[in-house]
C-alpha cells in the first residue's frame, strides 16, 4: 500500500453553489423551454444530470432560473447512468439531458441500460429546429427513431404549447407501472418559441392501465398449488424492489416458510442473512439457489422476466415446477417461461391477495432441510494463501464487513461484478445498483455519482474492473467537483477478466484481446483527478486500506492488484442446466 505522490488534499471549501434563490413558487411560462423545466419542477424533480450543447441551450437557459440542481457530467453516457442510478436508489425517475446529435447518441447506452433493468428515467434531448429536421442538419440525428426500441415511450415535442405536457406525461410514464426510460426530443425552435400554456401535473396517458390486483380465481388456484407443494420456492426479482414489495415478501416467506432465491436485480429484496435465503440463482448463482430452482415443484416468481442468464437452458429450467408468475407487465407472462398461474398486478398487492387466500403453509420440512444441506455443501469459498496474490473475493468480503448495512454497491461489468454479487451480503432493497440486463462496462463510476446524490446519507462503494473503469473514469472529475464521498475499488486483474475466463474455458485458452498489461496506475490517476488514491497488493493490508479509504471524506480510489488467474465459480455455461453448475474448470469441460 502506498499513498503516492503529488497528493494534495483537495478539501473543497467552496460551499457548493446553491441555486440562486430568487425563484418564487408559481413561475409563469413564457417559452417552450420554460414549460419543460416547470413540468419537471411540478413533477418534483430537484436534480438533473447532463451536458450542454447547441440545440439544448434554450432548455439549459430555462434551468438558470430553476431550483433544479444540474450536475454537469463529463460524458452523456455518464449522465444517463447517473440518472439511472439516481432513479434506482430514490425510486423516482432520474433526469438526463443532452444536446442533439452526438449528445443524444451518447445517451443511448444509458437509456438502453435503464430499459433492460426497468429503471425509471427521463431523458431530454435537444434537436435541430423543426425546419431543419430531415435535412441532415448539423448535429441532427433521428433521436426518436434511434431510441424508440429502448424507451417505454418517446416524444418529438415540436409544438411549444404541448411541449410541457409531453414532458409531464413522459415523467409520469417513466414512473408508472413497470418503470422504465422515456425521452422527449426538443427541437430548438419549439424550445425558444413563446407559449403561455402552463404544464399540468404529471399524468399517464389514457391508454396506459397497468394491472393492480390479480384475478381472484387464479389467486385461489395458485394458493392451492402452493399449499400442496412439497418443494416450494420463491424467486424474488427486481420487481419486488421496484414495486416496494420487500416487506410484504419478507412477511410472506417467513409465515409460510418458503425458501427464497433472488435474481441478480432482485439482490436486497430479501435479506441474505435470513435462514430462508438461498442467495442468487443463475449463471454465477449459488449452488443452493440453482439446485433449489431446478428441483422445486412450485415456483413463485415475483417481478422477474426469467432472463436467460437466470434460467440457463429453458429445457432444464425448473422442469418439475408449476410456475406462479406475479408480474405487472402482461407481456412478460409466457414470454420465456410458461406461467401455470399468471398473476397480473402490483407485486405488493398480489402478495397480499395470496396471503389472504392461503390457509396453511406447505408441508415442506424435508425440502427445507434439503435446501439447508445444499447451502452447507456448496459454500461460496475461496483460498487466501498468504504467499499468493490478493484474492478479489477477500477484498469484497472485508469491505462488506466494514461497510454500513444499508451501503449501496455499484459495479462495472465482468468478474468483479459477479464477486460483488457473491461476496457482499445484501440485506436491504435499493443497495444493489448494477447493469444487470444490458451488462454495460463503464456503469460503475457514473452510477456511484447518481447513487450518492440520490441517497446522500448512505455509504456508496463501487466495485469496478480495470477495463470497466477505463470506459468512464472521466466521471471521477465530477465526483471530485461535487465532493462526493464514494469509495471506488478497482479489482485490477490487468485484463478484461470475464472474457479471459471464457477464453480459457471455451476457446482453448486462446486469449485474443483480453489482457492489457499497459493499464495506468489507477491510484496516481485518481490523484491527478483530485481524488485520493490507494494501491493495495497484500492480504494483510486490506483492512487498513479499506479503513483509510472509507475515512477519507471525498472520492477515494483503491487500486487492488488481484490474482489475475482468479475465476468466477460456480458457473452454468450459457444455455446450460442450472443444477449442473460447474465448480471448477474441469467440470466445465464435462458439461
Amino acid at each position, binding site marked *: 500500500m502506498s499513498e503516492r505522490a503529488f497528493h494534495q488534499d483537495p478539501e473543497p471549501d467552496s460551499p457548493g453553489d446553491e441555486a440562486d434563490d430568487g425563484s418564487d413558487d408559481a413561475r409563469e411560462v413564457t417559452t417552450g423551454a420554460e414549460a419543460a423545466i416547470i413540468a419537471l419542477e411540478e413533477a418534483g424533480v430537484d436534480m438533473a444530470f447532463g451536458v450542454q450543447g447547441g440545440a439544448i441551450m434554450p432548455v439549459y437557459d430555462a434551468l438558470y432560473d430553476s431550483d433544479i440542481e444540474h450536475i454537469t457530467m463529463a460524458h452523456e453516457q455518464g449522465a444517463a447512468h447517473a440518472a439511472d442510478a439516481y432513479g434506482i436508489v430514490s425510486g423516482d425517475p432520474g433526469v438526463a439531458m443532452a444536446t442533439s446529435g452526438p449528445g443524444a447518441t451518447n445517451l443511448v447506452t444509458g437509456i438502453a441500460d435503464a430499459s433492460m433493468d426497468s429503471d425509471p428515467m427521463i431523458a431530454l434531448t435537444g434537436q435541430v429546429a423543426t425546419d431543419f429536421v430531415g435535412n441532415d442538419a448539423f448535429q441532427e440525428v433521428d433521436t*426518436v*427513431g434511434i431510441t*424508440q*426500441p429502448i424507451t*417505454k*415511450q418517446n416524444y*418529438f415535442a415540436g409544438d411549444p404549447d404541448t411541449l410541457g405536457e409531453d414532458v409531464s406525461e413522459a415523467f409520469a*410514464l417513466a414512473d408508472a407501472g413497470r418503470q422504465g426510460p422515456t425521452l422527449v426530443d426538443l427541437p430548438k425552435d419549439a424550445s425558444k418559441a413563446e407559449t403561455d400554456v402552463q404544464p399540468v401535473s404529471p399524468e399517464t*396517458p389514457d*391508454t*396506459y392501465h397497468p394491472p393492480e390486483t390479480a384475478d381472484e380465481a387464479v389467486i385461489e388456484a395458485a394458493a392451492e398449488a402452493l399449499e400442496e407443494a412439497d418443494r416450494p420456492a420463491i424467486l424474488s426479482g427486481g420487481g419486488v424492489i421496484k414495486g416496494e414489495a420487500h416487506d410484504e415478501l419478507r412477511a410472506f416467506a417467513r409465515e409460510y416458510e418458503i425458501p427464497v432465491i433472488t435474481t441478480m436485480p432482485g439482490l436486497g429484496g430479501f435479506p441474505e442473512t435470513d435462514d430462508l435465503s438461498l442467495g442468487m440463482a443463475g449463471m454465477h448463482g449459488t*449452488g443452493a439457489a440453482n*439446485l433449489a430452482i*431446478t*428441483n422445486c415443484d412450485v415456483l413463485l416468481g415475483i417481478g422477474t422476466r*426469467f432472463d436467460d442468464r437466470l434460467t440457463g437452458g*429453458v*429445457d*432444464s*429450467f425448473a*422442469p*418439475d415446477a408449476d410456475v406462479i408468475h406475479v408480474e405487472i*407487465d*402482461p*407481456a412478460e*407472462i*409466457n*414470454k*420465456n*417461461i*410458461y406461467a401455470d398461474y399468471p398473476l397480473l398486478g402490483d407485486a405488493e398487492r398480489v402478495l397480499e391477495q395470496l396471503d389472504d387466500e392461503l390457509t396453511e403453509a406447505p408441508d415442506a420440512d424435508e425440502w427445507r432441510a*434439503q435446501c439447508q444441506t445444499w447451502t452447507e*455443501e*456448496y*459454500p*461460496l*469459498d*475461496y*483460498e487466501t494463501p498468504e504467499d499468493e496474490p490478493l484474492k478479489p473475493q477477500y477484498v469484497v468480503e472485508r469491505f462488506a464487513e466494514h461497510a454500513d448495512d444499508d451501503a449501496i454497491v455499484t459495479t462495472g461489468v465482468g468478474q468483479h461484478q459477479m464477486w460483488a454479487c457473491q461476496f457482499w451480503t445484501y440485506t436491504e432493497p435499493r443497495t444493489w445498483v448494477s447493469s444487470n440486463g444490458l451488462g454495460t462496462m463503464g456503469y460503475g463510476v457514473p452510477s456511484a455519482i447518481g447513487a450518492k446524490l440520490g441517497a446522500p446519507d448512505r455509504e456508496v462503494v463501487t466495485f469496478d474492473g480495470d477495463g470497466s473503469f477505463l470506459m468512464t473514469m472521466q466521471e471521477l472529475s465530477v465526483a471530485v467537483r461535487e465532493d462526493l464521498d464514494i469509495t471506488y475499488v478497482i479489482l485490477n486483474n490487468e485484463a478484461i477478466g470475464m472474457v479471459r*475466463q471464457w477464453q*480459457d474455458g471455451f476457446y482453448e485458452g486462446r486469449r485474443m484481446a483480453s489482457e492489457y498489461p499497459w493499464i495506468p496506475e489507477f491510484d496516481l490517476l485518481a490523484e491527478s483527478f483530485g481524488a485520493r488514491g490507494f494501491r493495495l497488493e497484500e492480504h494483510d493490508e486490506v483492512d487498513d486500506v479499506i479503513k483509510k479509504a472509507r475515512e477519507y471524506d471525498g472520492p477515494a480510489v483503491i487500486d487492488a492488484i488481484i*490474482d489475475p*488467474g*482468479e*475465476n*468466477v*465459480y*460456480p458457473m452454468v455455461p450459457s444455455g446450460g442446466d442450472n*443444477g*449442473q*453448475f*460447474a*465448480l*471448477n*474448470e474441469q*467440470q466445465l469441460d*464435462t*458439461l
Partner: protein
Amino acid sequence: MSSGELPGPAPEERMRPEGRRNEQGIRIDPEAEATHQPRYAVLSALVKHEPGVLAEVSGLFSRRQFNIESLTVGPTTDDGVARMTIVIEEPEPGVEQAKKQLRKLIPTIAVEELQPEAMRRELALVKVRAEKPDDVQSVAEMYNGQAVDASPNAVTVEITGSKQKIDAAIEAFEQFDVEEVVRTGAAALERGAETMDANGYASGE
C-alpha cells in the same frame, strides 16, 4: 493457473429432475413432445393517430422476430384514432406474445385477434400486356375484376377480395404477360353487429 475451485458434490452426483420444457418454456411430457404449428392470425388494432406509430409497430414486429405477412393502416371515423390490420404467421405462443407486445405500446388503444371467419379484403392492381384485350377482360370478369386503365399495349385490372381469390386471379392472368402486380395488405373486420372500441370487440372475452 486458473483458480476459483469450489467444494461440493460434482454435477453427476446431484439431485436432478426428470422433466423438461420445450422452446416456449412449457413443461412437456418427454414422451410426447407437443410442437406448435405456425398459424395465420389477423390482428386488428386501434392506435392513436399520431406521427411515428406505424414505425413503432413495424419496428416492434421486426425486432421481436414476428413474421408480418401484411400490415395496413388508415384513418377511422374518429380523427384521433387509426386502425391497423396486421397479418402474422406464428406458432401459438408467438401470437399471444405479439398481441401483448403490441398492446404494450403506449399509442395502442386496443388489440384484438379476429375470428377466422372475419371479413378480409385485399386489393391488387394487375398490369397485363394486352394483345387480346377481350380475353383479359373475360378473365377479369371471372374474378369480379375491373379494367381501370387501358392503353394500346396494356390493360390494368383491379381485383378485390380474399387473399386466395387474388392469388387465383393473378395465376389466371399468367396466361397473358403479367407486367406488374401491386397488392395491398388485408383490411379486416369482424362479422355481425359488434364494433371495436377501447375495450376491444364487445363480443370478445
